[in-house]
């Protein structure tokens, strides 16, 4: 019991402290610019691009896809910075020197970004409703919120894996940016997955977001939980697989860095 309580404490303290330590630069204006205004214009850009291709009646397809995709800002960039930031700020040796449970420490890094990511998606949907006439009148809102939560968790799972790459490479922003844009292409946010060549649909199949976006579209059109439960389970499974791969990499990195004395390598 004591152990569970200690691990929970490490989880929440680690989550809070890493968020404060690594995102202290996030002043309200910077937050607004990166998390509210930028997603708005990204949503507008891809919606107008889509509308110019397929007509104004298809606007909701792009609005929903891009609103859901906003979660990748927190899931990919935020989580990666939460893990890689320890390397850049020289605190990795202390982290690996502590007796703290690694899984709780590792998963705690994604905790606040899941809520932050959900908030981003809510804002995206709000922009869609107010500016692009997105109709939510037939939507099962609680299931949509569940869909957003699961999609955010699965994207954060990929972020945990990417964060571990940040412990290995110095060019992580290059990798992050590329993955972010690949998600825009392959997750179905802007291009229906079935339009892609079949070889490339494999990328969609193994990407987080794909099933979450598909589920959100079904819900917006009036679907319910029974129609999207398969998609949501798949989305969650994808996120857990990425998270597990991330943890394996994190563990491998710790062992290698201790063996080779490269904990401080930047």
């Amino acid at each position: 019991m004591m152990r569970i309580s200690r691990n929970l404490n490490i989880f929440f303290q680690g989550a809070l402290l890493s968020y404060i330590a690594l995102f202290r630069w996030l002043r309200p204006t910077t937050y607004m610019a990166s998390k509210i205004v930028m997603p708005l214009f990204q949503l507008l850009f891809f919606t107008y691009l889509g509308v110019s291709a397929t007509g104004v009646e298809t606007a909701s397809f792009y609005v929903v896809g891009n609103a859901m995709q906003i979660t990748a800002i927190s899931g990919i960039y935020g989580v990666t910075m939460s893990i890689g930031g320890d390397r850049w700020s020289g605190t990795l040796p202390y982290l690996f020197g502590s007796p703290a449970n690694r899984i709780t420490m590792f998963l705690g890094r994604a905790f606040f970004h899941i809520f932050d990511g959900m908030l981003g998606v809510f804002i995206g949907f709000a922009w869609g409703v107010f500016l692009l006439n997105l109709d939510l009148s037939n939507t099962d809102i609680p299931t949509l919120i569940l869909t957003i939560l699961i999609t955010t968790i699965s994207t954060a799972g990929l972020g945990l894996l990417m964060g571990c790459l940040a412990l290995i490479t110095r060019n992580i922003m290059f990798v992050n940016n590329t993955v972010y844009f690949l998600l825009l292409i392959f997750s179905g946010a802007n291009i229906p997955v079935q339009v892609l060549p079949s070889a490339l649909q494999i990328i969609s199949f193994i990407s987080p977001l794909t099933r979450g976006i598909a589920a959100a579209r079904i819900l917006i059109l009036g679907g319910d939980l029974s129609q999207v439960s398969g998609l949501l389970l798949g989305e969650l499974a994808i996120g857990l697989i990425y998270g597990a791969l991330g943890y394996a990499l994190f563990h491998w990195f710790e062992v290698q860095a201790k063996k080779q004395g490269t904990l401080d390598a930047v």
Partner: protein
Amino acid sequence: MSLCFLRGISRAAYMTFKMTLRQNVMDGFIIFTVLIQPLLIAVMALWMLQDSIENPAIFIIVGSGLTGLWSSLLFVSGNSITRERWTGTLEMLVGQPTPFPIIVFGKNLAHVSQSLGSMIVAYILAVVIFGLQLTIGEPTLFVIAIGFTVVAFVCFGLVVAPIFVMNPGVQGWQNSMEFPIFILSGFLFSIALLPGWTTPFSYILAPYWAARALHGASSGGASTEDILLSLGMLILFSLIYLFIAAFLFRKLLIKARSDATLAGQ
């Protein structure tokens, strides 16, 4: 202004251009901004637009290339002075006899020219991977328009860089300035899709006139008069930007010297 002085500053600008190109090759962020991102946007747009417009390939290649030009201007040229400050080389650049704006001009020219590479890669991609036909309606005007576009973007960069370095608060909004220009300038879709009240904002942006000239010349859908009008507007905006940049650089250097913040973080 003597010939010797002109030769000297041209050489300085050229050397800065060359050095910057070499440095950029090793910078993952810059490679992504000027090459990979426009390419990914081109791929996405090719899938989205290929059945909806006539002659889509050249329109998309030009449009996605323009997104690379703007992103490069915003994130790379916009930070060209700030980067020197971070690396502690700003004092030396300001202290040496070559006028500081010439150095920034050379750097911006390298960034903007490099962005054009994305158009070439996208061109190859469209032909080889997508098997699309590519024809340029007015090749001569297109080449002229590219030249004018590069000059206008470099001049715009000369305005943006001192603004960012003097106003860190404005730079905080950098991330949110990328897509609005993609939208307002009509890089990949017509601004006629946007609400009417946004049109005046498009008209005061050099990227809009660049897009209008390049799309007009490449897709062949515009009259020669219309392309010439856009080129004229690019010249006008370049001159306005140069005028503003001269004022901003003077102000920046006086302030940095009097506040002793050249080496500041």
